[in-house]
């Protein structure tokens, strides 16, 4: 167990260093030095050289990479010369709101997907199952911005039930005070996640329904309710842990699009705006953070699984 965890940690660290290497290389190829952006197009070569020397952009690449790694380790993600603010500060400002949106959405998605998947597995090949499969297949094939657009069209423009813009509050508490404005963004993200989760849940529940322990539970006279809730749910929702870890890249992408569509000031909107202003330090720092989140998510999922599932005994 200990050996497994150590190896798992080690490979996570190696992968994170690899991600840093990729983002560093991309940053270096796309914008080797922000000197031009800072000093303007009329700066003389001497001024540029002076800037590069002062900020270390003239040092050999491996040395610059070591500095980059060191800075990342100290949660210093660089400096946005366009916004004249450190990227870390910008992230701190926006992370809470993005985490709120994603966290709430994933929680609701899991709460819907687990019972839904089990229901479909129990009633498999019924009309209800086919209908739900068709719905989830459609959602599954839908780009998230289209889900958002349809929701906006129906609920904001025609029924006037919910606003079409997400809360513009600057603090998490402020956002929570205006829950109505978050219904549509959350609903879009939930629809996206439920489609994937419930299909997986259904197949996991189907596999488990065929197992002997379910037969035993039924044979000893348990009510169907007890069989499902006490035995099936626990066992078949274990893979959800892994699935959530694996779905982080999609979640980040979905977050980016949702925040853009609903103009919700979070990390995704910051990324989108930086694309327009070609603010590469922000763009690549968010890519790096996203990659690290994915690695950590998978790591946590793996560790959680080894603790929750006694059948998994890794050496």
């Amino acid at each position, binding site marked *: 167990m200990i050996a497994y965890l150590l190896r798992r940690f080690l*490979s996570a660290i*190696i*992968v994170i260093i*690899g*991600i840093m*290497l*990729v*983002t560093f290389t*991309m940053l270096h190829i*796309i914008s080797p030095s922000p000197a031009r952006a800072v000093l303007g197009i009329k700066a003389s070569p001497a001024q540029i050289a002076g800037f590069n020397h002062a900020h270390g952009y003239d040092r050999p690449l491996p040395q610059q990479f070591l500095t980059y790694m060191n800075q990342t380790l100290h949660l210093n993600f660089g400096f946005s010369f366009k916004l004249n603010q450190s990227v870390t500060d910008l992230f701190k400002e926006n992370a809470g709101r993005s985490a709120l949106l994603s966290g709430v959405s994933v929680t609701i998605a899991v709460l819907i997907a687990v019972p839904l998947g089990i229901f479909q597995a129990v009633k*498999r*090949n019924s009309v209800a199952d086919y209908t739900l499969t068709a719905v989830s*297949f*459609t959602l*599954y*094939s*839908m*780009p*998230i*911005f*289209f889900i958002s*657009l*349809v929701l*906006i*069209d129906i609920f904001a*423009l025609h029924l006037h039930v919910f606003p079409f813009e997400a809360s513009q509050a600057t603090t998490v508490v402020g956002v929570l005070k205006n829950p109505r404005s978050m219904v549509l963004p959350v609903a879009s993200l939930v629809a*996206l996640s439920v489609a*994937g*989760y419930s*299909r*997986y849940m*259904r*197949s996991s529940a*189907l*596999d488990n329904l065929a197992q002997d322990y379910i037969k035993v539970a039924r044979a000893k006279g348990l009510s169907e309710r007890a069989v499902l809730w006490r035995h099936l749910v626990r066992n078949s929702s274990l893979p959800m842990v892994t*699935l959530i870890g*694996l*779905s982080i*890249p*999609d979640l*980040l*992408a979905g977050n*980016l*699009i949702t925040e*853009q569509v609903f103009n919700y000031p979070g990390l995704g909107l910051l*990324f*989108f705006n930086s*694309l*327009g202003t*070609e603010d*590469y330090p922000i*763009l*690549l720092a*968010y*890519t790096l953070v*996203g*990659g690290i989140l*994915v*690695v950590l998510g*998978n790591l946590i999922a793996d560790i959680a699984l080894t603790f929750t599932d006694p059948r998994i005994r890794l050496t």
Partner: protein
Amino acid sequence: MTSLIPGMPGHDRDRLTALEPLLSPPDAGEVYEQGSGFKITVKAFAENRLALVGIGIVVFFLFFCYLGPHVYHSNQISGNLGANDLRPGPGHPLGTDDNGFDELGRIMKGGQAALEIGLLTAMIATVVGTLWGAVAGLVGGWLDGLLMRIVDVGLSIPTLFVVLIISARYSATVLSLSIILGLNAWFVPARLVRGEVLTLRERDFVSAARAMGSSQTRQVLRHLIPNALSVVIVNITFQIADAILTVAFVGYLNFGLHFPQVDWGDQLSDGVNYLGDGYWWLIYPVGICLILTVMAFNFMGDALRDAVDVRMRKR
């Protein structure tokens, strides 16, 4: 975006019924002719109704996008600002967009880009991924470790971020988008093929080939890749669906193709501005085409996965 985990094995196990007629027990004493593995696969695939629907939709869109413009002529080179935002009516079955382009013709043109990018991306990703995975699985040792850590790094970095950064920096064409997407999508096939090769190389026929002194190249090209092909083919369909969706995202965020080329994502993002005005024809027809195409490839992938999964055949 769609397939939360591309190539995720094992759902819809109950769809085995498709094979039932094929496997009905032969009369006693007779040898039951089963046909080659390929024939069984084709038959299982053809008996899956969803797969046929999927093929039908794809064929329809191929005709619609490529033959359509030869039957239904519309000017897609110069706009007509005097006839912009027309409602569907005579002369313009789906109305016109903001620049006066005929919407139906524009959907055909956008579909060409979507299908081309989807196919090209899948080809690039599959070729690179298959070779990478085969080499890693066959050579093993430290090289395997290194190659697979690179794959881990690639899988951890959110594809959409990298694609957006590159297409914001360098202008996007069908070819460049396909290459960027392809180079971000080969990690999944690489991992799948490596897994397949690892199991295959322990099989007797590969040992036999090795014992008879066949070279490593021959083992890879003649024995391992052909046998791992089923996994790869299934993955291709999901790759196409994913690529079409990702391009739609990039286009929707306005970092996609440039005039005179157009992509469904572009069209949707143009249409969004007029959602409040009730110009539904700028959004729903394009959106439905996009969803149907992605769904068709997902259907085909699902059916193929069931058809090639040997373990699921009740022999």
